[in-house]
């Protein structure tokens, strides 16, 4: 009997732990069933290994929606937001999409990560729903004409990085490490390599890692060191970049380091020795310590509500909601229209929208869904971003 009790308690604990992660994924927004509110859905990983991105997006979308509601809503209608967790999993993402549709979602501000987004984009396309992703950067995401991006596409980042390095003369012998198990990283790598060849940059070392072997980079760094690389291009996320920087220092290898937007966040990595990142350059659309009023207000508000400094995913998401607002006002849509009517109207309006946001000023969109904005190069000096230009 005693054993039964213990195992029952244990089973209960486990079940609880499964649900515990989902606790925060519900929305704070009202869930009233009237036709006078726009229903915007969000999908992203709020639990699991990619949770940092999804929760940043969820928080920032909520801030933007609250602001819009306080200022009178979109076209005079209030907005309600519901955010579902997908754990960075394509199947769960489609499930989340379906449950948001049951809730009555009219516009999707998501999804956050690329692989699930490709799956969901096929669904929104079939339903004619307007979708804008803050951060899924693969070109596969926007192959349907109803999907728009706030962030750069991967190839865009690759070619922009190569151009930047060549224009500024940052390095002549380039070493590359990339994550071959990640479409984001390998997409940037492929385009960078192509662009570097046409610009005459010499690539002396290229090596890969995978999600299952992303803690040890000694081999890749040794290879680059032996090849005499003077600039390392690191098109992947900051969690791994932090290890690369530490291991390079330990082995006495000190080239210049150049990252892309995934490198953003390295300074907010808890307990990270920022001296390791000294001199690291990266292309990022958003710097939390930028001096402009818009960024400052957003960072302050985010800090007050969630107790941390927002990363670029949060900024992309905040912009995404305001871009929806701009497009909805341009197309003059109302909540009583059907999902398909809203979708058609919004995607028709997008190419004419010009938006000044946190992640770029004068952002414009191609009808294909790709965004046009200027990449910003920053260098880390004394633990803060400083513009290179």
């Amino acid at each position, binding site marked *: 009997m005693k054993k039964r009790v213990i195992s029952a308690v244990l089973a209960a604990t486990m079940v609880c732990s499964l649900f515990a992660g989902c606790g925060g994924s519900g929305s704070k927004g009202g869930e009233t069933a009237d036709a006078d509110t726009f229903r915007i859905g969000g999908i992203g990983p709020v639990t699991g290994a990619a949770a940092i991105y999804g929760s940043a997006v969820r928080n920032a979308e909520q801030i933007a929606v609250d602001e819009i509601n306080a200022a009178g809503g979109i076209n005079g209608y209030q907005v309600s937001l519901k955010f579902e967790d997908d754990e960075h999993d394509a199947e769960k993402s489609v499930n989340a999409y379906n449950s948001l549709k049951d809730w009555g979602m009219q516009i999707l501000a998501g999804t956050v990560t690329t692989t699930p987004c490709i799956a969901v984009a096929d669904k929104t396309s079939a339903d004619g729903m307007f979708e804008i992703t803050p951060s899924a950067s693969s070109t596969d995401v926007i192959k349907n004409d109803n999907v728009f991006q706030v962030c750069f596409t991967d190839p865009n980042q690759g070619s922009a990085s190569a151009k930047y390095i060549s224009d500024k003369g940052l390095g002549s012998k380039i070493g590359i490490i990339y994550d071959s198990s990640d479409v984001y990283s390998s997409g940037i790598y492929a385009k960078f390599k192509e662009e570097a060849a046409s610009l005459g940059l010499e690539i002396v070392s290229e090596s890969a890692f995978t999600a299952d072997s992303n803690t*040890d980079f000694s081999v890749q760094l040794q290879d680059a060191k032996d090849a005499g690389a003077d600039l390392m291009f690191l098109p992947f996320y900051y969690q791994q970049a932090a290890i690369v920087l530490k291991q390079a220092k330990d082995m006495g290898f000190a080239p210049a380091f150049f990252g892309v937007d995934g490198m953003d966040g390295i300074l907010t990595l808890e307990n990270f020795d920022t001296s390791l990142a000294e001199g690291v350059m990266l292309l990022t659309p958003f710097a939390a310590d930028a001096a402009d009023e818009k960024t400052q207000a957003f960072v302050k508000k985010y800090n007050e509500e969630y107790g941390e400094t927002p990363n670029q995913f949060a900024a992309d998401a905040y912009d995404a909601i305001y871009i929806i607002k701009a497009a909805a006002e341009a197309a003059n849509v109302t909540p009583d229209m059907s999902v398909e009517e809203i979708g058609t109207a919004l995607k028709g309006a997008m190419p004419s929208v010009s938006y000044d946001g946190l992640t770029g000023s004068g952002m414009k969109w191609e009808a294909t869904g790709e965004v046009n904005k200027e990449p910003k190069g920053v260098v880390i000096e004394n633990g803060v971003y400083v513009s290179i230009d």
Partner: protein
Amino acid sequence: MSFIMYLINGISLGSVYAIIALGYTMVYGIAKMLNFAHGDVIMIGSYISFVTFSQMGLGPVPAVVISIVVCTALGMIIERVAYKPLRKAVSPLAVLITAIGVSYLLQNVALLVFGANPVSYVSMIAVPPLKLAGGELTITGITVITIVLCLVIMGVLMVFIKKTKAGQAMLAVSEDKDAAQLMGVNVNGTIALTFAIGSGLAAIAGILLCSAYPTLTPYTGAMPGIKAFTAAVFGGIGSIPGALVGGILLGVIEILGRAYISSQLSDAIVFAVLIIVLLVKPTGILGKPIFEKV
């Protein structure tokens, strides 16, 4: 010169695998179960040392001691609550599934307590790097410490099992649980002790792992756990020297494969070698063949 560097890095990585593999192999040898939560105990150990050393500002010695104590207690609690009641279960699968459940439980609890954001682990081992061959070869302090510590732990453990009463009891239980019980050995106590030692070692492994590869997340223990389990099978599961041999071979193959064959295929190479070894010698390199007694 690069080759020597790769070899040393491989041995260092392999030493961490070996210390983790000890936890798997001892528990398997004595309780005949695969403790899949072992990798996550490593992660908990790393977090405890992170909190005590980096956040509370305790010295390295108290931080390591607290981490070992917490992990030891955690290992014993997991054994008592989740595994012991199932020891007499009809299907041996029950306890295996429970172990996977405990693994997820630990990961999700860590996710709740410590959050999903990775933290940067600051190494508490301040040993200057060794420069050989006129500065061409730089061996980091942590590499040296890891290899030395691994050998010391192995040595102490072997002596413990050969020379002490508790060690002899472990050996007896691993040979034949029922006969050991008839001879007056406290089987439950011995299994609990095994979990305690394995989990204490997990804390050390966690600290070494995160000192060398300094990003810590609730999923940090998962992949090294699987690799170390492979190392244990590789060397012959149930055999303590086997864990050492398997761990170091695995680390060296992984690094050399990455360096000279393909940086993308290193894991595939590791597991291909495992398959070949098991085909040639099904009990692993140092494993003893088991004869079914009728």
